[in-house]
């Protein structure tokens, strides 16, 4: 009986020992929690920029990359210090409800429509996203929708509304996935479906999507004829008056830093070497 007790204890102790080799706690340094969208993380932009901030302010930036809706919700609960998202109307609501203060423009890129190379719906000949969507409906061609709470999905719904179309999933061609941009592109690639994507994610994943081609939006942001497809990103510190736990001081520094000319210049250069064009265009106005 005693040996049984000993062995049980050993199993438990073994587990405990494993837990003891947890990474040691980092030395006391300020932590900034940034809730942002998957596009800023998956494109590699944050990996390129944030070490500079961490060095300059002896801080650590914890990035929680989720959809825009979830990022704003994290901010609205006071669980992040600053948000970096792309859905202007919802950002304004975030501020008007008192959850955020001092929203600033940071950068923009644009949305494009990609689809099967053969382009059965003739999207390539459309003059605008609105017209392209109408053509997809007319052809009942498969369309993969994010179907989540993201900035991209918000944009997609806006385009459907402008075309006075209400897509329903029982139509068969409209696929509401409830997934991130990467998964949605991969699904579109497999199912020969059209989809709306931000240009950054498209460029970074293009090599993995052999069946898809860029059909509407032009080769670069500047060549995109449909200006309604512009995709602006804003940075918003969480309001310390409503959420006393946040690190407002560091959040303010972050906003100042990411809108400063030298970092704005770096944003405009990011991706140039790899994709031959920037993934994001800086547009922070002087405060």
């Amino acid at each position, binding site marked *: *009986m005693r*040996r*049984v*007790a*000993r*062995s*049980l204890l*050993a*199993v*438990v102790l*073994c*587990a*405990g020992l*494993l*837990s003891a*080799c*947890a*990474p040691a706690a980092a030395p006391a340094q300020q932590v900034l*929690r940034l809730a942002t969208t*998957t596009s800023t993380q*998956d494109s590699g932009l944050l990996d390129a920029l944030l070490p500079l901030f961490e060095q300059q302010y002896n801080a650590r930036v*914890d*990035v*929680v*990359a989720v959809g825009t809706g979830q990022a704003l919700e994290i901010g609205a*609960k*006071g*669980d992040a210090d600053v948000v970096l998202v792309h859905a202007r109307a919802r950002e304004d609501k975030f501020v008007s409800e008192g959850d955020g203060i001092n929203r600033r423009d940071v950068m923009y890129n644009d949305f494009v429509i990609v689809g099967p190379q053969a382009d059965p719906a003739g999207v390539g000949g459309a003059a605008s996203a609105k017209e392209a969507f109408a053509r997809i409906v007319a052809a009942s061609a498969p369309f993969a929708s994010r179907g989540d709470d993201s900035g991209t999905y918000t944009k997609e719904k806006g385009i459907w509304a402008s075309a006075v179309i209400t897509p329903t999933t029982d139509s068969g061609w409209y696929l509401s996935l409830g997934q*991130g941009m*990467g*998964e949605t*592109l*991969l699904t579109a690639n497999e199912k020969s479906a059209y989809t709306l994507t931000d240009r950054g994610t498209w460029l*970074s*994943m293009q090599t*993995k*999507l052999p069946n898809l081609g860029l059909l509407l939006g032009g080769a670069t942001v500047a060549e995109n004829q449909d200006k309604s497809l512009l995709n602006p990103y804003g940075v918003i510190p969480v309001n310390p008056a409503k*959420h006393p*736990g*946040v690190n407002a001081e560091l959040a303010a520094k972050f906003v100042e830093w990411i809108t400063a000319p030298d970092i704005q210049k770096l944003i405009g250069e990011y991706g140039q070497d790899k994709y031959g064009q920037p993934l994001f265009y800086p547009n922070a106005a002087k405060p």
Partner: protein
Amino acid sequence: MLDSLSPILLLTLAVSSTALLVAAVIGLPLGAFLALRPVPGKRLIELLIYTGMGLPPVVVGLAVYLLLSRSGPLGALGWLFTPSAMIVAQIIIALPVVIGLTMSAVESVDPALKLQLRALGATPAQVMWTLLGEARLGVLSAIIAAFGSIISEVGAVLLVGGNIEGQTRVLTTAIVLETRKGNFELALALGAVLLSLAFWVNFGMVRLGRRADAPWR
């Protein structure tokens, strides 16, 4: 990627083993107690525990999230998006497994033994301890099953940990991230790492359990 693998690996082990340790410390005595004592409403409790084994991790994650959010009841702890939150969520997922399987393992021990121990004047704690020992193989599988359910779980740790690089990224959340980016080969390789990790941990536990069974060999 490779140089960032070791912190991910260590954190995976640290979070899941800590959660397993806590779940075992709470769950083993509780499971044995439920098996041995005529608790009122026992059938219902049993049913609830078995249902708890099917708790969707993402629901556990959501509940823990709301609990630990700065605007939640335990927000003052500041645990959200830290390994502590991930441990809490995994304890909740592991507990019903440990309690339920321990309970049925102890119940399957010959009831005559319990009577005999009582007759020999054993205290209730001694009886419980002896019966847990008798049921050691079942108890070991309870611990192993619980470990399997938390090391492979992704919904809860993604939600309450936030998949923060260098802070709360574990193997499963790294797999989700790489899949999202379309890096299928890397995601699959990480899956293999996770499997081999689980293999060696289980290997250790089974060995310990067997040594307890036959120390003279």
